[in-house]
């Protein structure tokens, strides 16, 4: 399977972490994160699509992504990124 996400950018983002700035990163690390991130995007998108469908829309809105986060325990770490109290249509 071809990877969709650029590994160099993943490495740069890893280096934003304070500890990781001073650590080295093995060559397989960005690859593993690229695969994991693709799963996350796919799952989040499908959950958002289900929510959009329930509201008879064909366009996924930000509120659908927020609903996908609220409806999945695995996405709890994102609650600060996408606050729950945003108006959900």
């Amino acid at each position, binding site marked *: 399977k071809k990877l969709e996400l*650029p590994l160099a950018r993943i490495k740069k983002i890893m280096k934003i972490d304070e*500890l990781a700035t001073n*650590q080295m990163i093995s060559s397989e690390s960005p690859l593993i994160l690229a695969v994991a991130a693709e799963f996350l995007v796919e799952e989040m998108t499908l959950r958002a699509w289900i929510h959009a469908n329930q509201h008879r829309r064909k366009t996924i809105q930000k509120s659908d992504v927020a609903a996908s986060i609220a409806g999945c325990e695995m996405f709890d770490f994102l609650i600060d990124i996408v606050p729950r109290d945003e108006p959900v249509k």
Partner: protein
Amino acid sequence: VILEQDRFMPIANISRIMKAALPPQAKLSKESKECVQECVTEFLLFLTSEASEKCNTERRKTITGDDLVFAMEQLGFDTYLPPIKAFQKRFKEANKID
């Protein structure tokens, strides 16, 4: 110094993954793509931070794939692990040949 454009995953790539996961009639608002872009970036940092702390505790200098797999287990992403472990195995084997 980290440039602003380097702080997030590129939105075009995110958008392609999203579209590939959806039926053809589905459309994506710009805000929904930006939101997923922020989320996936946070996800990378979340896993990195956990893996990085493990390295630090064990006084190792290099973040390995195993550290990230461990972080995913710790943080509740178990469902992603079987295909990732298979991927990691293939990667290791390919590197042996090189």
